């Protein structure tokens, strides 16, 4: 299948219906292709029922669709088994579930390594765990180029380290993390590795077996799926050993007055009615992604990022956050325009149909490392093209006129 961004864009009704819209906020949420909308509507129209419990055909069909969705996630992640996949409401919930389950067996003085580049969702849960369990946090700093300073791994990962919780790619700078180095450092001391894949998952299928990590979290809405569904993948032997976090229906073996036994994973971690239609929609999104030519798409996204980086680097009032090269990065570019606040800038650009995000992007420690409170972020997805960059650059000129 050859790649044509214009043809892909036509598969997205929201974008196809508004040629003047330049949607560059994909790191926050990606748009929905028709295939996913169709799958959602079809499921809710013809197959809506609760899962696991009913033995009538409609419920059995819903259960079958839900479990097929788990298999789609397995394929997307190239995980060994579908029962390593836990559905959650999103990356944030996935990381929190893991923090509670894995954290339950930590003792005072055990250490968790995180980084300054983390989204708050992979930062605050570990601060809370520190308070609950007395665990110690070690924070890897940023290097001079704005990437996570992995040269400090040996110093940060001690014999007391139990977990490294790290992003696959910064949601601000787009910098990709060399997970091989992280896994190697963790294995040397018997620690586990949890990866926040919220950003990386949008840019193509993954291979958790090759990555060698122990747990991986991502969201449906960032990879062309619906809101309200996410994934926590955990290596089977680890997942089986973890205690439940939420209690309720569907996660138990037997409940009596005296005690409760728990279901096997993944049901043990999916208390209550799960996000069924959302999981079906996510599966449609992932199957759609699996059908795409990712080498070409990545080259296209990289070219867009390179063009924007070059344009911004040529403006003497622009400061780019993080690496300026396209090596080992996602097509996410954060910057500031001197003397103009990010929200004022995004407000003016929004008027011209250019959708950017301003603010701290839930990454305040990272922004503090760059000495700023906030930034403007442009994040490309497979349907973006040069017209989006043209509009962004023209918008910056307009913003200078309006805001100065």
């Amino acid at each position, binding site marked *: 299948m050859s790649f044509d961004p214009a043809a892909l864009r036509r598969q997205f009704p929201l974008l196809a219906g508004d040629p003047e819209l330049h949607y560059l906020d994909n790191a926050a949420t990606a748009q929905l292709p028709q295939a996913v909308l169709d799958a959602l509507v079809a499921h809710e129209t013809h197959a809506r029922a609760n899962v696991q419990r009913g033995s009538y055909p409609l419920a059995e069909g819903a259960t079958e669709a839900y479990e097929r969705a788990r298999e789609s996630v397995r394929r997307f992640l190239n995980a060994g088994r579908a029962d390593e996949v836990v559905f959650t409401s999103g990356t944030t919930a996935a990381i929190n579930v893991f923090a509670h389950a894995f954290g339950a067996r930590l003792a005072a003085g055990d250490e968790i390594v995180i980084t300054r580049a983390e989204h708050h969702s992979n930062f605050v849960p570990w601060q809370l765990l520190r308070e609950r369990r007395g665990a110690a946090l070690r924070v890897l700093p940023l290097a001079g180029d704005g990437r996570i300073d992995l040269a400090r791994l040996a110093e940060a990962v001690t014999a007391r380290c139990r977990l490294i919780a790290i992003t696959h790619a910064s949601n601000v700078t787009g910098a990709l993390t060399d997970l091989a180095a992280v896994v190697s450092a963790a294995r040397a001391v018997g620690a586990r590795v949890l990866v926040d894949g919220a950003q990386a998952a949008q840019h193509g299928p993954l291979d958790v077996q090759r990555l060698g990590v122990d747990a991986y979290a991502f969201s449906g809405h960032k990879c062309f799926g619906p809101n309200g569904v996410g994934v926590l993948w955990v290596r089977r032997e680890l997942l089986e050993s973890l205690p439940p976090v939420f209690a309720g229906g569907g996660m138990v073996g037997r409940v009596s007055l005296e005690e409760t036994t728990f279901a096997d994973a993944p049901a043990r971690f999916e208390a209550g009615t799960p996000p069924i239609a959302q999981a079906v929609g996510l599966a449609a999104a992932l199957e759609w992604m699996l059908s795409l030519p990712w080498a070409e798409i990545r080259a296209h996204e990289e070219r867009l990022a390179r063009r924007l980086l070059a344009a911004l680097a040529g403006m003497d009032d622009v400061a780019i956050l993080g690496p300026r090269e396209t090596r080992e990065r996602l097509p996410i570019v954060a910057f500031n325009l001197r003397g103009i*606040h*990010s*929200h*004022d800038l995004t*407000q*003016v650009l*929004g*008027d011209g149909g250019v959708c950017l995000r*301003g*603010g*701290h992007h839930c990454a*305040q420690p990272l*922004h503090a490392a760059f000495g700023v*409170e*906030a930034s403007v972020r442009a994040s490309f997805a497979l349907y973006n093209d040069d017209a989006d960059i043209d509009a962004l650059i023209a918008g910056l000129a307009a913003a200078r006129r*309006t*805001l100065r």
Partner: protein
Amino acid sequence: MSAKDLYHEAIKSLAAADTGHGRLEAPDGRATLDNPLCGDRVEMEAQLAQGRVAALAHRVKGCLLCRAAASVIGKRAPGASAEEIERLTADLTDMLERQRPPPAGWEELSAFAPVHAHRSRYGCVLLPFKALLAALRAARS
């Protein structure tokens, strides 16, 4: 309502004037408030005399709207009581949410009328007022 309506000359002038920017040597109360959405920060200091604002100073790391709002405070708040600032903040909220007229005596706030069309920016305008209220509460306690 376009961004050009939002960023008109009156707003830009207020922000540029930055009236009240600075620090007080001996404030009776101070408060620092953050906007959780964007990380903007307002530090407000106040001195009270007979229950009224005798002096204030602020330092704002924020957007144009936030800086303009702090500037209005720097100009108009001296002489006001905490209760008056509280009422004013409620009136300003009403102005933003329901397009009510600006609070009497604070006509500069009419410059913020176009913000009505941009719900996500209400907090930018209100943050300095909330910081002032917090500083006044600190001063009275």
